[in-house]
C-alpha cells in the first residue's frame, strides 16, 4: 500500500483528509493523520468569548467527529521530520514512513518571545485571545472591569487572521458601550504596521472605522518588551504606552518540530512554492494552511481555497505530471465591527482589497469594504459552515458558494 501522511489535524489537515479519502482508491492508499490533541477548536470563535457572545462549549468538538472512516488517526506529538528518508518520528519512538506528505501543523502563539510578556501580570492584566485559555481568562476579567486604559498590541508580523485584533477592539468598544462604561475606557490599537491594515485601501477604510469609534491607532510600533512594574509596553524606538489591561497577539511561530527538522525560516514557517504549494525542499511534500510561508493571510478561508489547488497538484505529482494548478493567494475575511455589523474584504497576491459587492458584481449581497448588517450574518454563518462543510471538505451549497468561492483569477 502507498502511504499518504498528514501532519496536523486542524482546519487544513482535517479538510485534506476528507478530500483525499473521497478520491483515493482505498485498495491502493492508506491515509494517516497525526495530531497531538483530541479536541478541535473553532479558533475564529475565540474572538467572541471575552465578550460573552460565545463560551468554551461553543467552540470545541472532538476531532474524531470529523475524520472519515478508514483514515488512520494517531494522537501523538510529532517529534521530527526526516525528509531525506521519507519518514516522521513521533514522540515515544514510533516511526511513520510516507510516499507523499502534507504538512498542516499551523502556527502557535509564543508569548515567551517577548521579554516581560509572561511576567507577573500574565492572565491577571495581560491576556491573549488566540488561545482558549487566554480568551476564557479575559472573559472573567472583563466581567469585573470598570474602566481604564485598554491596549491591544500586535507583536510581530505575520500573525494568523490579520483582522482579528481590529475586530477585537470594535467588539470591545460595543461591549463597553452596552455596559455603560465606554466613557471610562480608553482604547488604543498598537501595530508594527504603518496603518490599521497593510493594503492601502483597506487600511484607510479600517483606520477611518476605528477613528469613528474613537479608538486610537498607534502605528509603526514594534514591541520590544513589557514593563510589568510601570505597566507599559516599550518599543525598540523607545516609545512607551501605558496600559491598565493589555491584550496581545503574541509572536506567531510555526511548530518547534519544524525547527527541529530544519525545515523552517526564522519563524519556523516552511518555505513553500506560493503557486504550487509544494515544499521548496522536498518534491513529495506539500504544505497547507498557516504552517507555510506563502505571502497571504494565515486564515481558514485561505486554507480552504488553497486545498483545491493542493489536491490537483498532489494528484499530478503522484501521476508524474507537471504541477499546473496555481494558487493565487485568495483570502476572504469577514470583519466583525460591533453592533451587529460587519465588513468584508476579498483579495489575493496581486489585488488588494477593494470596494464593491461580493460575490455578484453590482448585486452582492455582501458589500466589500462596507460596514453592513448582512456582512455580520456572513460571519455568524461561518461557524456553521466551518463545522459542517469546510472541515468535511464538502462542496459549498449555494449561499456558501457565494461567500466562500468567487475567486477572481488574474
Amino acid at each position, binding site marked *: 500500500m502507498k502511504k499518504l501522511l498528514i501532519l496536523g489535524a486542524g482546519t487544513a489537515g482535517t479538510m485534506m483528509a476528507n478530500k483525499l479519502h473521497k478520491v483515493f482508491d482505498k485498495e491502493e492508499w492508506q491515509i494517516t493523520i497525526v495530531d497531538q490533541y483530541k479536541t478541535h477548536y473553532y479558533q475564529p470563535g475565540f474572538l467572541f468569548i471575552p465578550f460573552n457572545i460565545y463560551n468554551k462549549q461553543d467552540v470545541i468538538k472532538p476531532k474524531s467527529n470529523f475524520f472519515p472512516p478508514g483514515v488512520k488517526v494517531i494522537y501523538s506529538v510529532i517529534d521530527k521530520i526526516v525528509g531525506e528518508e521519507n519518514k516522521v518520528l513521533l514522540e515515544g519512538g514510533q516511526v511513520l514512513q510516507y510516499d507523499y506528505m502534507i504538512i498542516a501543523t499551523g502556527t502557535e502563539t509564543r508569548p515567551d518571545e517577548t521579554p516581560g510578556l509572561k511576567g507577573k501580570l500574565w492572565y491577571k492584566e495581560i491576556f491573549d485571545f488566540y488561545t482558549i485559555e487566554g480568551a476564557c481568562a479575559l472573559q472573567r476579567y472583563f466581567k469585573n472591569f470598570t474602566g481604564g486604559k485598554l491596549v491591544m498590541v500586535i507583536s510581530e508580523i505575520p500573525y494568523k487572521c490579520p483582522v482579528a485584533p481590529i475586530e477585537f477592539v470594535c467588539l470591545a468598544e460595543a461591549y463597553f458601550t452596552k455596559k455603560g462604561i465606554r466613557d471610562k475606557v480608553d482604547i488604543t490599537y498598537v501595530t508594527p504596521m504603518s496603518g490599521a491594515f497593510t493594503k492601502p485601501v483597506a487600511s484607510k477604510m479600517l483606520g477611518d472605522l476605528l477613528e469613528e469609534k474613537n479608538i486610537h491607532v498607534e502605528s509603526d510600533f514594534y514591541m520590544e518588551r513589557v514593563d510589568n512594574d510601570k505597566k507599559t509596553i516599550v518599543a525598540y524606538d523607545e516609545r512607551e504606552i501605558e496600559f491598565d489591561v493589555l491584550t496581545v497577539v503574541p509572536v506567531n511561530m510555526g511548530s518547534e518540530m519544524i525547527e527541529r527538522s530544519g525545515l523552517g525560516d526564522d*519563524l519556523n514557517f516552511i518555505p513553500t512554492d506560493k503557486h504550487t504549494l509544494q515544499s521548496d525542499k522536498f518534491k513529495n511534500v506539500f504544505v497547507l494552511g498557516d504552517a507555510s510561508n506563502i505571502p497571504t493571510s494565515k486564515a481558514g478561508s485561505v486554507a480552504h481555497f488553497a486545498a483545491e489547488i493542493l489536491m490537483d497538484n498532489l494528484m499530478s505529482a503522484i501521476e508524474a505530471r507537471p504541477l499546473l494548478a496555481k494558487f493565487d493567494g485568495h483570502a476572504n475575511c469577514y470583519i466583525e465591527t460591533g453592533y451587529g455589523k460587519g465588513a468584508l474584504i476579498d483579495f489575493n497576491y496581486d489585488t488588494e482589497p477593494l470596494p464593491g459587492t461580493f460575490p455578484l458584481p453590482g448585486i452582492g449581497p455582501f458589500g466589500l469594504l462596507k460596514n453592513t448588517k448582512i456582512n455580520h450574518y456572513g460571519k455568524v454563518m461561518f461557524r456553521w459552515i466551518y463545522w459542517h462543510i469546510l472541515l468535511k471538505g464538502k462542496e459549498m451549497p449555494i449561499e456558501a458558494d457565494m461567500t466562500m468561492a468567487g475567486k477572481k483569477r488574474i
Partner: protein
Amino acid sequence: MSEKTFAGKIVNLSDEGYFEDSSQWSREIAAEMAKEDGLELTEKHFEVLEYLRKEAATGAALSIRKVGKSGIVDIKGLYVLFPGGPLKFSSKYAGIAKPSSCV
C-alpha cells in the same frame, strides 16, 4: 506609479515610493533618496541595504526580526540607523519591493 530623478537617473517608483525595478538601483540613488528624507547614509547603512538586496533577490520574506538576526546590526541598532520604521525605509533605499510579510 511615478518617475523621479535621483543622482541624474530616472527611477520608476510605486505609489508608496518603492522601486518598481530593483535593477535601477545604485548607491548614489539610495544616498540621494535618503537625503531627501533628511538621512545621511553611512557604510553601516549600506551594509544593511546590501543585505536586504541579497535576501530579496532570493525571494526571502523580509522582516525586522530577520535583519536583527543577520549579524550586521541588532533590532535596536536598526531603529537607530533608520528611525521611524526601519524596514519600511531601508527597503525603499535598498530599491526592493515593499516587504510582503505584511498581509
